[in-house]
């Protein structure tokens, strides 16, 4: 049996298990074990525990729960509300002003959190009800938050960038920088679409009656400043030679907890456990997927499937941009079914050599990959942000969220095209701050 055919069988088995609703981590693990048992016999079971454990025991991965905790600490406080309200005082005269404020708040919050669902929850919890209250249709209210939340993994810090950095041995600090300008670019694209859409449909203009004086506008800032200070602090720790990304994450988490406890008086046991509980749920879910992906990658590699796919793609011998288009379609497809971390761990070892061979920059590619993963976060059947929105706004239907998200998905596609046309959007800042890449 050829490796490619075995690979197809494994893929179908995986899709079947996912289809009946097996949790992704356990489906990946089960398919791997079954394949190993069939091909290599019972002896292969003996390394199961060591491989799974070894996949998790890495100092780089330490930053994942930490960066999630930073986000959920702040998300458990009313800071998200303060953030978009402060922005709203400046943006309320623009069509769709409140939506813009929410998108902007997502973008700022993304700099505090490594995770996309946390970003969604932090801003959306108060933001979605507020938008619907002020007359925005459900789809705009939920779609903008679903999409805005995905900025969490593009604007640094970012869990997907950490996992990519570990899987490809690229510098995590540099990956973070590469995501910054593209993150602003997507924010701008989201906002531009929102202004156009709201003006076209004549919604969100009612807020025009409400006017804020300059004094009122500045009065809203002090509550936001501590969070901006933390963002600047983390950037300093990361790029000022104080600590590695994992260490910065730990220090950042501690500061965020202290900040919400002091400013928002969140010192009751229930509130503190609340923020840790959200962190536990999201990080454990991600870490189990990482461990299982380790087994899955081992299985594919040991049966020479990974290598055969890579050889097969390399043998296609197409124009590099056609190749990039194919890779993007493939990533989009994978993103429909799997969460970002799983996609990156499974595809990065296959794709990176091909990407380098075709002369693409690995840091630029990380950004393109991440935007693909952002799309996956808001598309069914597995879109983590969809679950979050569903949780915080149960009265909005999945169909409405999806309809609302589609324009923003198109914005992301435009973003990818812009990145292909002007790769400097991703590579300029890291090169400016850290010199040429390795």
């Amino acid at each position, binding site marked *: 049996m050829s490796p490619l055919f075995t690979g197809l069988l494994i893929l179908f088995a995986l899709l079947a298990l996912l289809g009946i609703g097996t949790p992704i981590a356990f489906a990946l693990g089960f398919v791997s074990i079954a394949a190993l048992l069939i091909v*290599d016999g019972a002896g292969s079971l003996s*390394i199961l525990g060591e*491989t799974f454990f070894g996949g998790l025991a890495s100092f780089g991965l330490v930053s994942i729960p930490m960066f999630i905790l930073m986000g959920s600490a702040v998300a458990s406080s009313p800071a998200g509300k303060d953030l978009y309200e402060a922005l709203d005082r400046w943006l309320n005269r623009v069509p769709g002003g409140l939506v813009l404020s929410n998108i902007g708040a997502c973008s700022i919050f993304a700099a505090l959190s490594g995770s996309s669902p946390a970003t969604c929850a932090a801003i959306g919890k108060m933001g979605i009800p507020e938008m619907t209250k002020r007359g925005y249709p459900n789809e705009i209210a939920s779609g903008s938050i679903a999409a805005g939340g995905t900025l969490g993994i593009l604007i640094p810090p970012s869990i997907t960038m950490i996992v990519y950095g570990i899987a490809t041995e690229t510098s995590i600090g540099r990956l973070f920088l590469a995501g910054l300008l593209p993150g602003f670019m997507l924010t701008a694209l989201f906002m531009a679409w929102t202004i156009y859409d709201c003006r076209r449909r004549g919604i969100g203009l009612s807020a025009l009656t409400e006017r804020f004086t300059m004094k009122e506008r500045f009065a809203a800032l002090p509550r936001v400043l501590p969070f901006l200070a933390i963002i600047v602090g983390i950037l300093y720790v990361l*790029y000022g*030679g104080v600590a*590695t990304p994992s260490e910065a994450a730990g220090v950042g988490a501690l500061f965020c907890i202290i900040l919400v406890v002091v400013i928002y008086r969140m010192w009751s046991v229930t509130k503190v456990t609340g923020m840790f509980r959200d962190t536990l749920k999201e990080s454990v879910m991600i870490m189990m997927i990482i461990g299982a992906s380790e087994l899955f990658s*081992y299985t594919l590699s040991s049966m020479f499937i990974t290598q055969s796919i890579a050889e097969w793609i390399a043998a296609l011998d197409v124009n590099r941009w056609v190749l990039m288009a194919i890779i993007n379609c493939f990533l989009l497809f994978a993103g429909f079914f799997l969460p970002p971390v799983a996609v990156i761990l499974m595809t990065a070892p296959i794709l990176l050599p091909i990407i380098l061979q075709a002369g693409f920059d690995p840091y630029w590619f990380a950004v393109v990959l991440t935007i693909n993963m952002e799309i996956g976060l808001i598309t069914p059947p597995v879109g983590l942000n969809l679950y979050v929105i569903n949780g915080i706004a149960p009265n909005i239907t999945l169909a409405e969220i999806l309809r609302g998200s589609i324009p923003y998905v198109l914005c992301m596609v435009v973003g990818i095209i812009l990145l292909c046309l002007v790769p400097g959007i991703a590579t300029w800042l890291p090169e400016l701050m850290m010199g040429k890449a390795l």
Partner: protein
Amino acid sequence: ETTLKASHQWPGGKGDVRDEMVQILAREVANANVDLKIQVYPGKSLFKPREQWGAMVKGVLDIAAFPLDYASGRHPEFSATLMPGLVRNHDRASRLNTSPFMDDIKKVINDAGVVVLADAWLAGAFASKKQCITSPESMKGQVTRAAGPAFEQMLVGAGASIASMPSSEIYTGLQTGVLDAANTSSGSFVSYRIYEQATCLTKPGANALWFMYEPILMSKRSWDELNEDQQKALLAAGKVAEEYFLGEAKGLDDKLVEAYSNAGVEVVEMSGDDYDQWLAIAKETSYKNFAEKVDGGQELIDKALAVE
């Protein structure tokens, strides 16, 4: 036809000497026509570096180019193969291979269920962006990434402060200033392009503190399943790989020096006097620790130092 899986952690097909050794092994075995094929998995594409040992012991992995110290958590004797100052230079390394010291180490390897196909000792270096590292005095106050616990102990003894991170993060560590200095193998110093960040390199030269034993190993279980012809072919292929390595070993250090001088990095070397000062510290720190922790540890160190 029997297919053996051979794994290692270095880039494949890029001229890394350890990859080349495994590739030679595979080619030689194929040419011997004994119904034996070696499938090479380079660049940790099969196992994580440290997991290779356990996999070989269990017979799940057949062959690996493996830095032996990675298994020192299971066999503390192996720490002696990444012990500061035990080797000193390449000529001594090849004399060490046939010494009673290596007989003892290989006995531990065999008893664990692994056989050695080819020996290899890799040299390493120091680099700093603060101050050239020669005598222990020059190490004081430098935040350093060290390769291996025995080195960490010695460097701390010299007044350095240790930050642990994988070798792939050394570049960023130096660049952002988390690190002042680093210690790793000559190969990693070139492949991670540390010369772009360092201002001074301490080349291995005649008095190299850092040597690591990175042999090609094979699972005893897999070995026992082969027929006699296949075993003979593997041993012969191992010899060829080992001879290739001996021819290349010094060239590796020359490549290191060339890369760093071309990048305008100052290149220095430890004097015999510096080396003795380091040994004195090692005796008080790493050696002492090793002797306390490992049964017969002091004997092992004495045997290694006794080699001419």
